[in-house]
């Protein structure tokens, strides 16, 4: 009786929450049913989880930069996805060059196989076959994207620093167009294979196949995340960033070198975006001019779900989005499988209903 009354109270106060809880319980129950009943093998389930983790880490990595620039410069940077793409193209161009320069002309290598360039199987880049060029590519991806973001800031955003967020947002859509189609101009518009899948060793862990590239991604992504964490935690930079996010005029009055902090923000955000783009290609094995743009909405969903301005929010949001979009495939079979992405968006909307500020919204960053 008591329980009943309490339940009724809860139903009245938080009807949405109850519905969600019930739905979640049903899903988990069904999941166990499937796992035990054999409708879903543990290996397949594990595969979904692992895939979700990998893509989630990448979304989170890219999301950190978006989140930082969002809160500090006060606008949603729709060009972020194209920073990611440039990271991928610049990094892989160099990785290709280094891996194949002894056998092929530099031109075709730099264009990652455009026109009549060498095919991926011939160049043979993979983490085990050409670890050096892969790592060099990563460094270039980070460096080049930092360069792109600083240059764009100097040319586009800085002259309109005082403008409102929407003006900047629209400008960033312009930047996005320019960056994206410059890739097409220099490289190509289709999707092209990059890595040499025949030389990527994979390991069977309890039926879940994990390949060396995925392991590389997880290692690098985690390392970068820890690095950012330490940087923001150990230096006063993190606080200065939040101060600027709060009130840029006051930050100026207080003596915070506003332009310097902005530059640092771009360096961090651009660098991580470049790394994420580079790593995305490592897991997909293919490269396309719009690969960042395709990810952008998911990244936004992750950042918003986590709470704008929060580094941890972006990471957690990324993982949730990644896992949700993969795990939902357990239920979304057949023609419904195209709903994996909507599920991720739907989840974000749900989170916002109960935490309008995002999961980590209002919680300090560093």
């Amino acid at each position, binding site marked *: 009786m008591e329980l009943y009354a309490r339940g009724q109270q809860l139903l009245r106060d938080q009807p949405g929450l109850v519905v969600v809880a019930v739905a979640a319980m049903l899903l988990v129950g069904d999941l166990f049913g499937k796992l035990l009943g054999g409708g879903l093998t543990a290996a397949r389930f594990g595969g979904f989880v692992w895939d979700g983790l990998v893509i989630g880490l990448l979304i989170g990595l890219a999301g950190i930069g978006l989140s930082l620039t969002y809160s500090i410069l006060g606008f949603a940077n729709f060009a972020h996805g194209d920073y990611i793409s440039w990271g991928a193209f610049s990094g892989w161009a160099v990785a290709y060059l280094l891996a194949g320069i002894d056998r092929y002309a530099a031109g075709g290598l*730099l264009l990652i196989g455009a*026109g009549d360039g060498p095919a991926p199987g011939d160049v043979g880049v993979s983490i085990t076959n050409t670890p050096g060029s892969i790592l060099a590519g990563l460094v270039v991806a980070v460096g080049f994207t930092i360069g792109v973001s600083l240059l764009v800031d100097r040319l586009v955003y800085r002259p309109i620093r005082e403008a409102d967020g929407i003006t900047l947002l629209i400008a960033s859509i*312009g930047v996005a*167009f*320019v960056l994206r189609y410059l890739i*097409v101009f220099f490289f190509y518009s289709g999707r092209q294979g990059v890595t040499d899948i025949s030389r990527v060793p994979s390991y069977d862990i309890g039926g879940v196949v994990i390949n060396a590239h995925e392991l590389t991604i997880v290692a690098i992504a985690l390392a970068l995340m820890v690095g950012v964490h330490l940087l923001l935690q150990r230096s006063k930079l993190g606080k200065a960033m939040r101060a600027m996010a709060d009130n840029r005029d006051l930050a100026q009055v207080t003596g915070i070198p506003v332009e310097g902090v902005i530059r640092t923000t771009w360096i961090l955000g651009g660098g991580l975006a470049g790394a994420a783009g580079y790593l995305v290609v490592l897991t997909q094995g293919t490269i396309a001019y719009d690969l960042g743009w395709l990810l952008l909405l998911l990244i936004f969903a992750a950042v918003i779900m986590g709470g704008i301005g929060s580094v941890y929010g972006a990471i957690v949001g990324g993982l949730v989005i990644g896992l949700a979009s993969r795990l939902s495939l357990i239920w979304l079979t057949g023609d419904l499988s195209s709903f994996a992405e909507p599920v991720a968006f739907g989840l974000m909307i749900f989170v916002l209903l109960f935490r*309008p500020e995002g999961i980590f919204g209002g919680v300090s960053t560093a």
Partner: protein
Amino acid sequence: MAAFYLLFLGVGAILNYDVAGLISILGQVTFFTAVYALIVLALNLHWGYAGLFNIGIAGFMAVGVYTMAMLTAPPTGSPPGLGLPIAVGIVGGMLAAALVGLVTALPALRLRADYLAIVTVAISEIIRLTYNSPAFSTFTLPGGIALGTGGASGIGNFPSNPVRAIYYVDPSSAASGTTPIGAAVFGFFEAVFGVVRSAVIVDLTYGLVLAVVVFLVYTLLARVGNSPFGRVLKAIREDEVVAKSLGKDTNRFKIKTFMLGCALMGLAGVLWQGFGTGAVYPQAFRPELTFYIFIAVIIGGAGSNTGSVLGGAVFANLLFLLPQYLPTMIEQTFSIQANPNNFIAAVGPIAAGEIAPLLGYILNQRLPALRFVFVGVLLVYLMQNRPEGLLGHRTETAAAVDLSEGHTPGGQTGTDLTAPDEGGVDNE
């Protein structure tokens, strides 16, 4: 507007169009100007007036036009529809868009502006992917009525553009006989200009009908803006807590506005992607469409209806239509045979003093890509130089009467201790 007509007549002339071609290009200018103006007006209501940062426009347009198509397509066709009259389809499309707007608004309006934006774009993507999914390609309603979205192939069998009924006995077939009006109009054009394709006249007529619709919507929104209702919207955009503390039920205002705007977006969808193009496909509603509309609003200057129409016109003509003709115009002027298929092959010969391969690469391979680069650069330029839109900073006062009038200058109260400046507002 006349400037755009002239511009495109010029384009037509460069491209050696005949009279029919010229009329057709004017019809296109009218059509795209009108549809963009329409959708931009709707967005201006959301964003310019009420500060609702809705970047799910494409989704609401899709709901409008899909609903119209599903209501009016014949039950026997593929995908099957309900076979209802066009008017029901149009109203139904607007209502459906408004309802989806309501469903979006109820939870989303609690969020801050940029979160609302992401929620709306997410919903728009959900809508598009739903229409795109083969799962609903055809389905059966509980009552046994078959209905379908056509999946990725969309719906193409809904009744055609209603203005065709003015000219043709059977509006669905151009081969059918003409009505008396049709005969008269076609005859008139034939007499004046020589032979003119009848399809061109139909399109031009449709463009004019749309212009009338734009005018009506403009009037409607001008009234909304210049009224106490619009004033509350403006206040909500500025500071919702204040509006609430002054006794305004801000949620009601927001929901009403959101629904009205969505209904207009649905209407724009019906008139543009529905009757304007004759078939509806999910891929027409990608987020890029929404961005285009935002760009148009920005060009005109958010918050101003006049600006919206202007912005729609500028975007439609200079950024959408003109770039479509540019490649051909360029190709007609220069023709370069060299056609290297990658960038290195294009720039390599420059060392040897040969510029032709690069030009050939640009013209023959990468012109479409450069068009987008151009749009992007232009956008950035606009934001840096005219962020308030082409009309500059315009503040349209939100009131049904001219507020400055009521002042009786007799009451000079202030001594020299007030009035530092004489209220020099920079509204031009």
